[in-house]
Each structure stands twice: as C-alpha cells, then as structure tokens.
C-alpha cells in the first residue's frame, strides 16, 4: 500500500464563515421542508418496497434511452440475425434497469470528531494544517482514509467535508465541482429552476454534486419533491431514476393523494394500488394489500417484461387470427387481462378513498368515476369488435 503524503493547506479562516452561513440558511428554511425523522434506509431497501417502487417507476424505453446531448453520443449500425437481435433486446433491458438505478435513501450522516492521537510536541511546527490522504488505487470512497494533523499537534480523522473534497481532488467524479453550484447554494436560483419545472435536471445534478447522506441532499431533494407535489408534473419523473425516491418520500410523509390522482387520471391503476400499498406498508396500517398485489402481478407483466414484449412485437410475424386480436387490443389499448386487473385495482382504490387515510376524497372519487365510465365504454367496444370479427366472447 502506498501511503503517500500530500500537503494541503487548509485556510480555516476562509472556511469557517461559509460553513456558518450554510447552517444559518438551513435554519431559515427548515420549518417548511419535510425530513425523514428516523432512518428510512431499512424500509427503503426492503425487497418488497423496492419491487413496488420499480413497478411504479415503469420502463418507457423511449424515455430511458432518449438522445442525450453528451460529447460521445454516436450511433452504431449493424446487421444482425433475429436471434442476435433478440439477445440485444435483452441486453437493452438490462441496460435500462441500470439506468433506472435509484439513488439511495439513507439518513443524514452526522460528523463525529475522531481523534487518533494528541502530540503536543508537534505544536506550532507549522502554522497550517496537514491533510494526509490514502490514494491507493481501487479503494471505495468511504474506505479511503483521510487524516488531518492540526496546528496544535492533534491527529484526527478528517471531517466529512474535507474527506469529500480530497476524494474529489484525487479521484474526481465526473460532473461534480469543488464549489457548490449557485443553483444549490442560493435559494432564489433553485426556486427559479423549480418554477421552470427543471426537476429532472435539478435532481440529476443533485445526485452528482452531493452524497446521499449529506444534509443538503436531503433538504434540496425534499424541496424539489414538495414543489413537484404542488405543480403536479409527476410525469416528468416517470421512468427516471428519481421516481422511486419521490414516491417513497410522499408515502413516508402522508401526501400521496396528488400522485395517486395523477396515476388514476393517466390510467396507471396498478401503480396507484402499489402506491397505496407502499404507504400502508410504511405506516403499518392493518390492511391486507399483499393479496391484491399478487393478484395484479399474476395478471399483468412486470415493467421489464412489458418493455421487452414491446421490443419483440416489432419482430413477430403476424398470424391471421392473432393478428386481428392484436389489432383490437392495440386499437383499444387494453387486453382482457387488463380489464380484470382494473376491476381488482379499482376495488382496492375505492376502499382506500373510503378510509380515513385519503385526504382529497372528492377529487379522487371524481377521477375514479370518470375512469370507470371510460373503461366501461372501452369494454363494450372490445366485446363488440370481437363479436364483429366472429371470435368467441370468452
């Protein structure tokens, strides 16, 4: 192990005022910003929660693989056999899953002072601090040792802020800057970004600039989610990596109703059920939701499967009979299993609206009512078309 010594002058006089300033600015906005009052991590990493969140996020490949304006976005054109293409599709889905990796939701890490040794003999050896960083190749950021020799001869582990800066110095993370972008440090610019509905941009930049356990990360993301809850532009985050943490945030803080309304309005009923189930799960509400979820899962494919089917459907050669059935389904947008799933989920959602957990009952009821009417019309049309084509009304 090469334990290299590097000297860094730390201008304590310059740093102290900025830190204080930040603390003050936090204190000013704290009253309005919701925070996780206890460690959310065990709940978040739970397998069932993750499955619910992933299902809610959906996988719209057009959105995941949208054309990015990055320096190296070139296309490659290849000739492939059908088999190769199918393999490629599977790889694509894997890649999309990777793109949708959710940022961790963990509690705020407190900075603790850990002193290694006190050597008064070294007092006033220099009038600046020394920072020593272990720059061994291949270490994880959290495992990297950074220690500080103070002016008074105390050797201690570096505070988180110094640690982060040293990591950035020797192993830069692409897109992260040393100074905080003014977008995050000054409230008015952040507010302007939010008012322009640049949610995805703000959250993307947040993940790059901050570590998930930092206080600023929590506060800014909470602010974004709260603003989003007011502007109701949830669709912007759908099928991005931030949708899961957002839904989790709402479920944790008892404010899922707006998101639920949006889901019902857009006819994502299964997602609505999952959202309700998530909030029941987080708050230990004694309602049996697992049965409904498993029923729905049996009826409808997972987002990955759905995306894969969509890709594969472009390859299939249509048979006569199936072709018509397929055509009817695409024309209406729903298959028989979808109607069955809708019925189950509507029952569950109505039970939720009737319970004391729902806050915006009238709005939700109206949305459900409209959806029911539309669904009924679609079902009638579906059966009518089937009859017209001489298929058995099963």
């Amino acid at each position, binding site marked *: 192990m090469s334990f290299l010594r590097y000297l860094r002058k730390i201008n304590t006089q310059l740093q102290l005022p900025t830190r204080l300033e930040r603390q003050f600015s936090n204190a000013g906005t704290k009253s309005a910003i919701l925070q996780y009052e206890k460690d959310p*991590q*065990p709940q978040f*990493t*739970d*397998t069932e929660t*993750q*499955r619910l969140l992933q299902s809610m996020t959906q996988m719209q490949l057009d959105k995941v693989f949208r054309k*990015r*304006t*990055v*320096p190296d*976005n070139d296309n490659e054109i290849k000739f492939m056999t059908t088999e190769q293409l199918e393999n490629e599709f599977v790889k694509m889905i894997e890649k999309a899953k*990777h*793109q949708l*990796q959710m*940022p*961790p939701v*963990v509690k705020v890490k407190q900075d603790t002072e850990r002193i290694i040794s006190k050597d008064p003999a070294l007092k006033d050896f220099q009038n600046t601090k020394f920072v020593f960083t272990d720059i061994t190749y291949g270490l*994880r*950021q*959290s495992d990297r040792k950074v220690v500080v020799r103070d002016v008074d001869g105390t050797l201690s582990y570096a505070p988180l802020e110094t640690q982060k800066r040293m990591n950035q110095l020797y192993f830069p*993370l*692409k*897109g992260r800057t040393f100074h905080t*972008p*003014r*977008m995050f440090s000054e409230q008015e*610019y*952040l507010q*302007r*970004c939010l008012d322009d509905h*640049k949610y995805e*941009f*703000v959250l*993307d*930049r947040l*993940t*790059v600039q901050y570590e*998930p*356990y930092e206080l600023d990360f929590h506060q800014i993301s909470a602010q974004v989610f709260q603003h989003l809850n007011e502007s109701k532009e949830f669709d912007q985050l759908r099928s991005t990596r931030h949708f899961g943490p957002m839904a989790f945030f709402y479920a944790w803080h008892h404010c899922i109703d707006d998101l639920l309304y949006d889901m019902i309005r857009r006819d994502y009923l299964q997602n609505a059920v999952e959202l309700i189930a998530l909030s029941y799960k987080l708050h230990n509400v004694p309602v049996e939701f697992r049965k409904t979820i498993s029923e729905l899962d049996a009826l409808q494919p997972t987002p990955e499967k759905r995306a894969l089917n969509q890709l594969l459907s472009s390859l299939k050669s249509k048979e006569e009979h199936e072709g018509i059935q397929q055509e009817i389904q695409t024309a209406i947008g729903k298959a028989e299993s979808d109607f069955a799933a809708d019925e189950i989920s509507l029952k569950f959602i109505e039970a939720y609206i009737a319970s004391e957990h729902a806050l915006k009952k009238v709005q939700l009821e109206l949305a459900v009512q409209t959806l029911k009417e539309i669904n009924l019309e679609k079902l009638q049309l579906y059966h009518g078309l089937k009859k017209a084509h001489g298929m058995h009304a099963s």
Partner: protein
Amino acid sequence: MLPITRGIYNALSLIARSPQNRYALHTASALQCKAVAAEAEAETAAEDVEQDAAAEQKLDANDRTKVIPVETSMRYLKSAAYKQTYGDDFVWVQYRRNHKGMFAPRKTRKTCIRQGKISTGNPCPICRDEYLVLDHRNTDLIKQFISPQSGQVLSYSKTGLCQKSHFKLLVAVERARDYGLLTYDVPFREYDYSEYYGKTEETAPKKP
C-alpha cells in the same frame, strides 16, 4: 490696468461664445434670410438637421463605448426588429468570414473592437450587432451557440466569433450552467449500494 482690461475682454468673449448668443446670431441670420425667401430657408434648415443627425449616426455606427444593458438585449432578442434582421436563423448562420485564398486562417481575429470602435470591415456576429450582449442571463442568445447534438459550445471556426467574443461566450455559458439557467445532460452517476447501505445489509434484506 492691464489685468483689469484682460478680465473685461475675457468676460466679453465668454458672452460672445455662449450658446445663447450664438443662437441669437443664428436667429438673426435666419430672420434676414426669411426676408428673402421664407419657404426655401425652412427646407434647407430641415435638410441641415437631417444631415447633422446622419453624420452623428455615421459616427455612432462604429462606436461601441455605450454599454447596452443585458435586459435590453434580452428584450431585443424577442423583438420584431430582431426577427426582421435574422429571421429564424441563429445570429451566426448568415455570417461569412473574409479571407485571402481558399482556406480561412485557423483562428479568427483577436478582437473586432479596438479603442471603443469597430476596427474592421467585417466584424464578427456578436460585435456587429451591439444589442447582442453575452451574459449568463441572456440564455436565448447563448443557446444559439450550443450544439444540439453534443451539448458543447460550438467552435469559432463554425460561428466565426472573434477570440474575445468567444471567450466571453465560454464564460457566459459556464456561469449560466452554474446558476442553473441553462440545462444540460448531467453525467450518469452509478451508485455502489454497498457503500451506503453498508453494515445494515445483513440485518435488512438487500435489493434483489
């Protein structure tokens, strides 16, 4: 005696040079002319005024000492005058560099404006229009210089900006990104979950 007489002379000359006096003289001559031909004089006077204004404008066309505020520039970019000048094109699209021979020099000129004046016959797209101000708030203008494919700032070999304007553009873009006024595609950050979930991993079941 001499100082007193000199003082009186100075005072008199001041009075004689004062604009009011000149105006009086001018009006006197005008009155004289009026006696000859009132209508013709009026026409020539109007022409005089026009010529003066034109001369001043001609002086002003190359003058770049006046600082145009960014707000004005931002309004200009949305105005009908802008639309009429550039149409739907970006400001640099119609610009052509002047150069000897087949190939343009690799670098554009250092600056178009020297000593507060345009010092060239073919100033760059930014310098030729004084109402185009490069600033981080002027996002409508900055966006014209960013490639829709790669998200990078377009080269001066494409846009023809002089080196000074190009540098200003780079600064403005960087600042606009810092303020969050200009969105771009942030590099994807991959999370190593074990780094964050750490030791609680054993107790709580990990993500599949």
